[in-house]
């Protein structure tokens, strides 16, 4: 593994965007609060604003501690804090990996292989992700770039193939039940944006103008999510609300020539994106564990993280099949804000205070 390898900020952007778009694909009205279809459109804008708000610690980190990831920032306060931050991030990433694997398992078990035991598929996925994670950030970045192109292409094709089924009459009036449902959906979407935590670790490893890339990323996410939701609700109408994976249902609608469904295309990019996300998460866990323990055992860390996920998912799948499905929005939002917003905020604040004191001390001397 190339520990110090750097990637272009646009590559990082592609990987994070792909990871976020995967969460959009897995959007399920069953798990979210039930709201009218058109309320989802403003909710995406609200979600983008919330994401911007949640990324304040990240912006501060980039501004005051350029070239340092969150564990390094914590190290400026104390090595112990660095280790504690590292461990909290490892736990955080482990949880996100578990969520990603569970969601993938749910999709595969529901849509692709409804009659089969999914243990084999989880083993395959984690084994492949472990291998991919050991290849390092450069490989993940490059695969992310190519996959984002494939993702966009597949989506464009599916959208074109089902465009004749889009009817705006299917959409509900906006804010029919007030703004609250939109805000709820926005919070739901924003708290699925765990990529901010990824960026706190990966941003120092990216070359280029991070601010512009972040803005483009956010804009791309907003446009993409709006487009997906439009096709889902204008195409399927209220039928979308009855489906576990409405985005997949849209792909089932697409027809071209003698081919009566193109969900296979979507399934392909879905699995590929999930695989990349899981690989990235395993890589991130390894990176953080390297900061906490020895740098030597990077591949072992990946392996251990993968094994942990495998054991939990295979043996406890019955109770934790889908965390977001079982956990309410409040619990999810709390967890998200605690780990993705509060922990880095506190670390940065402590580091800034220590730096200021250091300056004052130096001036007085």
């Amino acid at each position, binding site marked *: 593994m190339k520990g110090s390898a750097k990637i272009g900020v646009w590559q990082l952007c592609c990987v994070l965007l792909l990871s976020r778009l995967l969460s959009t694909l897995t959007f399920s009205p069953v798990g979210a609060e039930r709201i009218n279809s058109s309320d989802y459109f403003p909710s995406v804008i609200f979600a983008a604003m919330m994401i911007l708000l949640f990324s304040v610690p990240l912006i501060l980190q980039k501004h005051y501690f350029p070239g340092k990831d969150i564990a390094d920032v914590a190290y400026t306060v104390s090595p112990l804090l660095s280790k504690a931050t590292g461990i909290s991030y490892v736990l955080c990433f482990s949880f996100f990996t578990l969520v990603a694997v569970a969601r993938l398992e749910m999709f595969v078990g*529901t*849509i692709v*292989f*409804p*009659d*089969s*035991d999914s243990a*084999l598929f989880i*083993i*395959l996925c984690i*084994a492949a992700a472990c291998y991919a994670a050991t290849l390092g950030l450069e490989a993940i970045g490059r695969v992310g770039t190519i996959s984002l192109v494939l993702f966009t292409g597949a989506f464009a094709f599916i959208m074109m193939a089902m465009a004749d*089924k889009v009817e705006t*009459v*299917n*959409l*509900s*009036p906006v804010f*029919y039940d007030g703004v609250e449902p939109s805000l709820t959906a926005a919070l739901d979407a924003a708290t699925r944006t765990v990529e901010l935590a990824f960026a706190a670790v990966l941003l120092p490893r990216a070359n280029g103008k991070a601010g512009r890339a972040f803005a483009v990323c956010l804009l791309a996410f907003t446009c993409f999510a709006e487009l997906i939701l439009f096709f889902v609700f204008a195409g*399927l*109408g*209220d*039928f979308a609300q*009855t*489906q576990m994976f409405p985005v*997949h*249902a849209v792909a*089932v*609608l697409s*027809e071209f020539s003698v081919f*009566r*469904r193109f969900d296979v295309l979507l399934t392909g990019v879905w699995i590929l994106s999930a695989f990349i996300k899981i690989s990235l998460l395993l890589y991130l866990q390894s990176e953080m564990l390297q900061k906490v323990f020895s740098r030597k*055992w990077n*591949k*072992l860390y990946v*392996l251990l993280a993968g094994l942990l996920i495998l054991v939990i998912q295979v043996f406890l799948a019955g109770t934790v099949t889908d965390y977001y499905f079982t956990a309410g929005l409040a619990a999810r939002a709390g967890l998200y804000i605690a780990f993705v917003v509060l922990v880095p905020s506190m670390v940065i604040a402590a580091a800034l205070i220590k730096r200021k004191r250091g300056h004052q001390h130096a001036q007085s001397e």
Partner: protein
Amino acid sequence: MRKVSKMLFLVLLIVLLLSGCSTPGLELKNRLIVQAIGIDETQDGVRVTLQTLNTEMAGNPNSGADLGEVTRCLTVEGATVSEAISNAAKSEGKQPLISQNRLIVFGRETAKSGLYTHLDYFVRNASTRLTVPVAVSDTTAEELVSASLGENVLTADSITDILDGARYNTNIVSQALYEFVNQLSSELTDAFIPVLRMEEAGEENKISMYSVGVFQDDRMTYELSADDVTALMLLTDKAQSGYFSVDNEAYSAQTVLRIKKTGTKIQSKVQNGKILFNVQVKMTVDILETRSDTPFSLDKAYLLQTEALAQQRISEMIEAAVRRCFLEQNSDPFGFGQRFWKKYPAQFKSDVVHWRNALPTVEVKTQADVSVERVGNGVENL
């Protein structure tokens, strides 16, 4: 580390290879390829009729042996649709593959007693094609699905061909599963699907579209006549092409018109506390045939009269259909409620609440704009 990874690789390989012994997939030869599903309610549950492809040939197809019938019909019963379909596996030893299903048919009595309970299986099953057409049989679904239309003729094929006729004929309606479910679950629009009838014509049977059944909640309550279906198609903006005729008394001629292009705009507004819909139909037609006892030239006056008569006919057709549905049946299969709800959500919330209650007071005004584009290759009628 290297050793550990090598050992893990070996373990993975063993897991993979061993799992290969119990591969979860079902090969094509073990699948029952379902082409049409007919559902009839019985006293104990449901009777499901499956039209399947006969893939087990009498001999090797490469040696020119007799291939036998292309399709087979299978009738199974169970407490629910899924149970009945899974019972097919018991008798056939093959797992039904419903992803290739091309038609879902319900018996008339089943449609009258409610469809929600039977649709859940299709909505929940990920392999269902959402665009599969749904129809009602004039008698039982079993009769329609198992109808023999001739040697090696797929009933599902014939029925889907008939329903595809909606592209050329405004008297034919085709509803996809997801559209039907959408309408069934909507409180503002009543669902409608075609009613098909099988008739005996000599040795072979014939299937044709009989009417369009309209549902209130999930029960089929009444049927639409041919003119009403045309109005329905125009009001839902699904009409693409079709034919209608107008009688011109001044020329004592009947003119058959072919719809080339049509579009409908519906605007809703509230006037003096009443809900009013303005329907604007814009249509381009060609004269297909003129029938008269006395020859006459197709002059400008005749064309203008034909256009005016066509406009009048369409307006009457729409208004009559709306009247019948709104006042006689207290039903809105046209989607007026949906439009009003979308445009005036606040008013809907405060004044309407239940669309069905508001139907008797709703006013619909139709304005048709028909222009004749071509008159064909003759300048006068013969």
